[in-house]
C-alpha cells in the first residue's frame, strides 16, 4: 500500500492510496462543505446541491450521467454530512479515467431551474421518508439542542419550509463559493493509476477558478456542558419509544479520539458491551448503544435507546447508572482487551476493502490534511492503554449530563418535565 499526493496550481488536492492487489478502483470528490457551512436561508442546500450535481452539466444531461455510470458498471453514489459532501464511484480499474472524468465534469453542474423545481419534490419526499422512520426526528432535535448556536446544530436535510422557500440562486451562489478547487479533494483508493488520475484532474479540473475559502471553525458553545436537558416529541402511532442522548467527547483533532471510540465500544457497542448485556441481551430494549462521533472542532458520545414506552424512563436511568459505574469503579482489563481486539479486528477487515477505505482516506485528508494508513490506525489502537480510556472517562463523563430527546408514544409526563425544568 502506498500513498501519493499532488496539488494542482489552482489548489485542488489529488491523493491516492494504491493497493497493488486490489481488483477495483474507487474515486471520490470530497468537498469540504456541509450543513455546518449553511446560513438560515441556505438550510439544506448542501444536500439539495448533492442531488442537483446528478442533474447534469451544460453539455451532459441527467440521463446521460446515469447511463454512463451504469455503462461503466460503476457503483456510484453521493452523501452529505454536517462537514462533507462526497461524490464517489467504484469501478473496475480500466474504467478509472472515464469515471474520474465523469465525476469531475459533474462538479460543475448546470443547476437548471426546471431541474431544481423537480428535484425539490424528491428532497421533500426524502424529508418525509425520514420523518416516518425511527428515531422520528429525535436525532435532529437532539443535535439542535446539544450544539445550540454552534453551526453543527443544523440538520443535513433541512426542513420542508427551508427547502420549499429556497430559490435556485441561493444554490448557484453557494456552489460558486463552496466548490472552489482549494476546497475539494480528489481521492482514489485501490488499483489506482496515479499518473492518469493527476492527468484527469488537470484535464477536467485545471481551469476551475480558485476562490478564497473562509475558515470553518467556530467557537464551541455546548449547551450540554451546562447540564442535562430532556425533551419529548410525541408520536402517538409509533410502537417503541426512541431516545437519543448526546454528551460531549473529544473532537477530531484530539489525540484522545481513538480512546473515546474504544470507551464507547466497551460501554455501548451493539454486541458484547455493558449496555448490551444489561438491556439488549435481557430483551428490555430493542437497542441500547453508544458511539463516539468526532467533527473538526467538536466531538460527542451519542447514546441510542429504543424500548417499550413505559420502560423508557427506567432504562434511561439504568444507562446513566452504567455510565456512572464505569466512571466511579473503572473498567476491568479483560473487557478493555476484548474491545481493543474487537476494534483492531474491525479495522483490519475494513482496511482490506478499497471501496470502504475511500471513506476513511478522503475525509481524513479533507479534515486534517493528513494521511493515516490502516497500519497507523492499528498501531494507535494497539498502543491504547486502560489508563487512556480511564482518562477519557474522567475528561468527558457520560453520566449525569447530555441532551436527551425522546420520540414515541409517551405523552408529556410531569415527572419527566420536572427533570428538564430542574436544569
Amino acid at each position: 500500500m502506498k500513498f501519493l499526493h499532488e496539488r494542482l496550481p489552482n489548489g485542488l488536492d489529488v491523493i491516492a492510496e494504491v493497493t497493488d492487489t486490489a481488483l477495483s478502483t474507487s474515486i471520490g470528490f470530497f468537498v469540504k462543505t456541509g450543513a455546518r457551512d449553511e446560513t438560515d436561508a441556505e438550510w439544506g442546500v448542501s444536500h439539495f446541491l448533492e442531488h442537483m450535481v446528478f442533474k447534469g452539466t451544460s453539455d451532459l444531461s441527467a440521463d446521460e450521467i446515469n447511463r454512463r455510470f451504469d455503462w461503466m458498471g460503476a457503483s456510484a453514489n453521493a452523501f452529505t454530512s454536517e462537514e462533507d459532501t462526497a461524490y464517489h464511484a467504484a469501478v473496475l480499474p480500466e474504467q478509472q479515467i472515464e469515471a474520474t472524468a465523469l465525476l469531475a465534469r459533474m462538479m460543475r453542474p448546470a443547476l437548471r431551474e426546471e431541474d431544481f423545481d423537480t428535484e425539490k419534490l424528491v428532497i421533500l419526499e426524502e424529508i418525509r421518508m425520514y420523518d416516518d422512520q425511527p428515531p422520528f426526528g429525535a436525532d435532529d432535535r437532539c443535535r439542535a439542542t446539544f450544539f445550540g448556536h454552534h453551526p453543527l446544530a443544523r440538520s443535513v436535510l433541512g426542513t420542508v419550509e427551508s427547502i420549499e422557500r429556497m430559490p435556485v440562486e441561493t444554490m448557484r451562489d453557494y456552489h460558486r463559493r463552496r466548490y472552489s478547487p482549494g476546497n475539494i479533494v480528489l481521492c482514489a483508493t485501490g488499483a489506482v493509476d496515479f499518473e492518469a488520475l493527476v492527468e484527469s484532474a488537470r484535464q477536467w479540473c485545471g481551469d476551475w477558478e480558485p476562490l478564497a475559502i473562509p475558515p470553518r471553525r467556530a467557537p464551541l458553545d455546548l449547551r450540554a456542558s451546562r447540564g442535562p436537558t430532556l425533551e419529548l416529541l410525541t408520536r402517538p402511532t409509533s410502537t417503541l419509544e426512541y431516545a437519543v442522548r448526546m454528551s460531549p467527547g473529544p473532537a477530531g483533532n484530539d489525540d484522545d479520539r481513538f480512546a473515546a471510540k474504544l470507551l464507547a465500544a466497551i460501554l455501548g457497542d451493539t454486541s458484547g458491551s455493558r449496555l448490551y448485556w444489561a438491556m439488549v441481551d435481557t430483551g428490555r430494549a430493542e437497542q441500547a448503544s453508544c458511539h463516539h462521533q468526532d467533527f473538526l472542532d467538536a466531538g460527542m458520545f451519542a447514546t441510542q435507546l429504543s424500548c417499550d414506552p413505559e420502560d423508557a424512563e427506567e432504562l434511561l436511568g439504568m444507562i446513566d447508572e452504567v455510565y456512572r459505574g464505569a466512571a466511579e469503579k473503572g473498567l476491568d482489563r479483560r473487557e478493555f482487551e476484548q474491545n481493543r481486539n474487537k476494534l483492531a479486528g474491525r479495522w483490519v477487515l475494513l482496511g482490506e476493502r478499497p471501496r470502504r477505505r475511500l471513506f476513511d482516506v478522503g475525509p481524513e485528508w479533507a479534515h486534517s490534511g493528513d494521511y493515516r494508513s490502516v497500519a497507523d490506525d492499528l498501531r494507535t489502537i494497539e498502543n491504547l492503554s486502560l489508563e487512556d480510556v480511564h482518562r477519557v472517562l474522567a475528561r468527558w463523563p457520560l453520566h449525569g449530563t447530555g441532551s436527551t430527546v425522546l420520540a414515541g408514544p409517551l405523552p408529556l409526563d410531569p415527572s419527566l418535565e420536572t427533570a428538564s425544568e430542574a436544569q
Partner: protein
Amino acid sequence: MSLLLPIAANLPEPVKQTLHSTTLDNGIVLLGEDLPGLESVAVAFHTPAGAVHDGPGRCGLATLSGEMMLRGAGDRTSRDIVEVLEGSGIQWAQSVSTSHASFAGAMVARQLPTALPIYADILRRPRLPDDELENARQMVLQNLAGTEDDPAHRAMSALRQLHYPHPLGMPSEGISADVEAIGIDDVRSFVRGHVVPSGMIIAIAGRIDWDDFVTRVERLFGDWSTDDTSAVAIGNRGERIRHVPHDSQQTHIALAWSVPPYRHDESYEASAALSVLGGGSSSRLFSEVRERRGLCYSVSAGYHTLRDYASAICYSGTSAARAQETLDVMLAEIDRLPGTIEEAELDRVKSRAKSALVMQQESSAARAAWIARQWYHLGTVRSLAEELARYDRLNVASVEGWLAANRPAGLTVVSLGKEPLEVPREVSP
C-alpha cells in the same frame, strides 16, 4: 473526450480463481475459495433450520431457536462465547432466513482455529437453557416491535406473505402472538430436528488453507449424525391486493409477480429484464418515476429468489397525495417492458452485473455467502468465468423471448399508508 466503450467489450480476463468443495460422510458440504491478497477469512455455517420449518402457530420459532443457540453451548456460557469471539477480533453474525439459520464470522486468518470450535459448540452442543428463554423471547419481541415502526419493511413483509405460497413468505422474524406461545420444548425439538448435518453448508473464503480447514472441520463435525429432516408441505398463497392502514406521511407501494427461480437457466433473462426496469440509476423506473417526475425518493425493481419460487419485486415510497400517480406510472412501465428493450440498456445491465461480480472478490464475507448460496440453489458452485460467460450470452432476443412468453401478470399489490390505492382490475385478475 474519449469514446465510451461498454464494459462487455473490454472486461479483463476473469480473475484467477481457486474453488474447493467436498462432502463429509454425514452430508455436510464444505466449500472454499482462495482470495489471494486478503488477510482475512470469512466462514459461514448454514444449517437447514430456516423459518420455513416454524410450523403452525409458531411463526418465529427458528429465530428464537437461533437466538437460544447463542445462550450457552458446550462448556461456554453466552458471555464466554461473545467474549472469546470478540476478544479474538472475530466479527460474528447470526441470522435466520426462510431456508437457513446461519452463523458466520470474519477474522484475520490466524484466528480461524479459535473460531471453529466455538461454532462447533453452538451448532452441536447448544445448552438451550430454560432460564434464558424469557430473555431470548423478549429480545425477539423487541425486534418485532421495532419492525412495526419501519413502514417499508412492513410493506415488503406483507407482500412476501401474500405472494409466496404458505409458509414460504412468512416473516422469519416471527409474529408476536406466536412468539409469546413458544415453549422451551418447542425450541429444543426444533434444534434437534433441524440443526443437523444433512443439508448443512459450511463455506469459507479469503486467505485459506483448504486442507487444514477440512481436517479441522472433520475433527469437529465428522462424527455428527442425525436423521434427515421432514419436508415442508407447501400451501396456498394469499389474496392479490391488500391495503395496510398506517398513519404515516408516505404511502409505501410493493408489487410482485412470479419469475423463474435462480436454478433455472432463464433466471438470467428474468433478472436482466428486471434490472432494465428498475436496477440502476439509468433504469426505467428511476428515470420515469424519480428523475422525470420527482414523485419519490426511492423506487426500484429487483429479483428475489427462494429455491423453488422467485419473484419480481418493485417498491416505492411517496407522499400519500402522489401515491396513486406513482403506482400508475410503475404499472405503465411494467406493462411497457416487453417488446421495448434496447441493446444499450441491456449492455448497461450486463456491465453492472459483471462488474459487481468481479468486485465481490474483494470481500471474503461476500464470497463465502455467494458460494454457499450457489450450492444451495444449484448443487454446485459456478466459476466466475462461467458466470461472466453466462452474462455474455444474454442478448436482446433472449431477454425479449423470455418476456414474450412470460409477460408480467397476476401481480400482488400491497400499499401501506393512510389511504388505499386503486389497482386496475387487469393488473391482477
